[in-house]
């Protein structure tokens, strides 16, 4: 079943079409990779889908509803969650606080309930910490859960962000270059985590430059270049597609 679909999506910045008439869909429970050279429009597409940018035209449908004009926080509440190329974590929070933040998409922490410390506030806090602990253990940060995020190395900040994303209990998880800046050991751990996330029935959209990871993980690959979709298919189809090869390696005789 197609959970998320993008039709005729366009984003213009002045005269430049960063995303030019793109169609693709995410099949439920599958890992779809979005690849293409730098500047192809991958992150812009993600920003459009997740509400961080407003589209110029086109539709973005999630479970049949057009989420096109919705604010980013609302889209997160609907179950579409993304991570960033440069991990965005609150720098004064401890790891566990940063992850539990994800629960704020599912539970409303209101001002009045907090001010009066009503029993429902306490109930929600308990639930939130439960959700968070599962995510913290999954990404392997249990031992570091009291460390301040600002003090963490790059790779671990990434895991914190992933933990937060999982704590939102998403339906669609969008990962924007999660392997960037990770060493080989960290990459293979990441791959394993992504496999486990897929096994728990989540739908994943992966933007990556690590081709081995893309080929190993993806059920479907969508290729962008200069804002347009130039190919879509299985890994075999993509690897043999001349347009894709040209986009990455340039034209001319090989």
């Amino acid at each position, binding site marked *: 079943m197609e959970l998320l679909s993008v039709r005729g999506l366009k984003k213009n910045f002045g005269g430049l079409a960063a995303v030019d008439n793109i169609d693709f869909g995410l099949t439920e429970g599958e890992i779809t990779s979005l690849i293409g050279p730098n500047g192809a429009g991958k992150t812009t597409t993600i920003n459009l889908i997740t509400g*961080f940018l407003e589209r110029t035209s086109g539709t973005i449908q999630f479970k049949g509803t057009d989420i096109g004009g919705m*604010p*980013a*926080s*609302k889209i*997160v*509440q609907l179950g579409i*969650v*993304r*991570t*960033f190329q440069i991990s*965005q*974590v*609150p*720098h*004064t*929070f401890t790891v566990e*606080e*940063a992850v*539990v*933040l*994800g629960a*704020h*998409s*599912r*539970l409303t*922490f*209101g*001002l009045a*309930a*907090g*001010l*009066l*410390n009503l029993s429902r*506030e306490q109930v*929600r*806090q308990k639930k*939130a910490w439960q959700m968070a602990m599962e995510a913290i253990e999954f990404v392997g940060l249990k031992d570091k859960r*009291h*460390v*301040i995020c*600002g*003090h963490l190395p790059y790779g671990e900040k990434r895991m914190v*962000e992933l933990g*937060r*994303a999982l704590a*939102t209990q998403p339906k669609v998880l969008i990962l924007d270059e999660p392997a960037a800046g990770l060493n080989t050991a960290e990459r293979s751990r990441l791959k394993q985590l992504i496999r486990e996330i897929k096994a728990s029935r989540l739908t994943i959209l992966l933007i990556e430059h690590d081709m081995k990871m893309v080929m190993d993980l993806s059920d479907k690959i969508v290729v962008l270049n200069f804002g347009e979709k130039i190919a879509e298919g299985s890994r075999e189809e993509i690897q043999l597609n001349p347009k894709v090869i040209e986009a990455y390696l340039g034209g001319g005789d090989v």
Partner: protein
Amino acid sequence: MMPRGKARKLLEFLAVVVIALGTRYVITDRYIQGIVVNALLLSVAVLGLQLIMGYAGQISFAQAGFMGMGAYASVLLTKSGLSFWLALPVAGLAAGLGGFLMSPIIRLKGVYFAMASLAFSIAIYVVFVNWGPVTNGTKGIIDIPYPKLGPVIIDSATSFMTLAIFTLWIEWKCFRNITESGFGRTLRAVRDNETAATAAGIQVNAAKMKVIFVGCFVAGIAGAMMGHYKGIVSPESYNFGESITLALMVLVGGLGSLRGAVIGAFFVTIGSEYIGAYAAQHRMLIYGIMMLLFMLFLPDGIDGLVRMVVGCFRRPAGPRQVAPTGVSR
């Protein structure tokens, strides 16, 4: 035997009653009593500003303006016969709703919000000066009736000290609850990284408006009490210079710390008396220099300094560490 939690709460309440009623016997000098009342009432407003600046990360130079809204609203009501105790929450509400006037600027980030709040503060001052029929312009409003609690008339420094201590205590408990709650976490997330907050499903602008409402509400309460204590409400007390002084109190006490708000209010109020005695004409210059010095050398304020000193005497921290910007809860 009552359960431990309840016993502790009762003990705390009794302690506050003792302090509120007993301070007048410890601080007997009238002049000092006046300073203490001033500092206490300003603390009420500064705590609100701490919530806005230290916890939600929105730098506001408009807090005195909201104190003014509360002051004018409350004295106009009490002068027309309404009980002070009913006028008080109305004053808070007036100021809180006034905070909603800032909604067009909440989308602005950092410095831009600060500048816009300064402009806002000036605009409020201009309204106070020019809305003669209501505010009596620069002449101000006088003959303000004192609050009455049954047979007791609150008309002296000592009785206002008692009132201020109770008010501050209630506010403290409420703010403690807020900062330790899920909503407190929301605010800190908005302060640290709005993108991360949004990506976690938080409605950033809604959170900002809520905290601004609360911060302005208590400013209104402080303004109302101050107006009835001083016996006069005039625009001069609520111009942007005063707003900057309130921001200075937050900075000096320690950004991000509730304790710091009270420390800062007392420190600057007392310091201001010395400045008034020896160098009154250089007041704003001294404030400016203080602000710079604190930002450069003591970014966590006095509260941060105290915690650092106390930390030297504690055994080395286990997994728990102190956050970089001194988030104290």
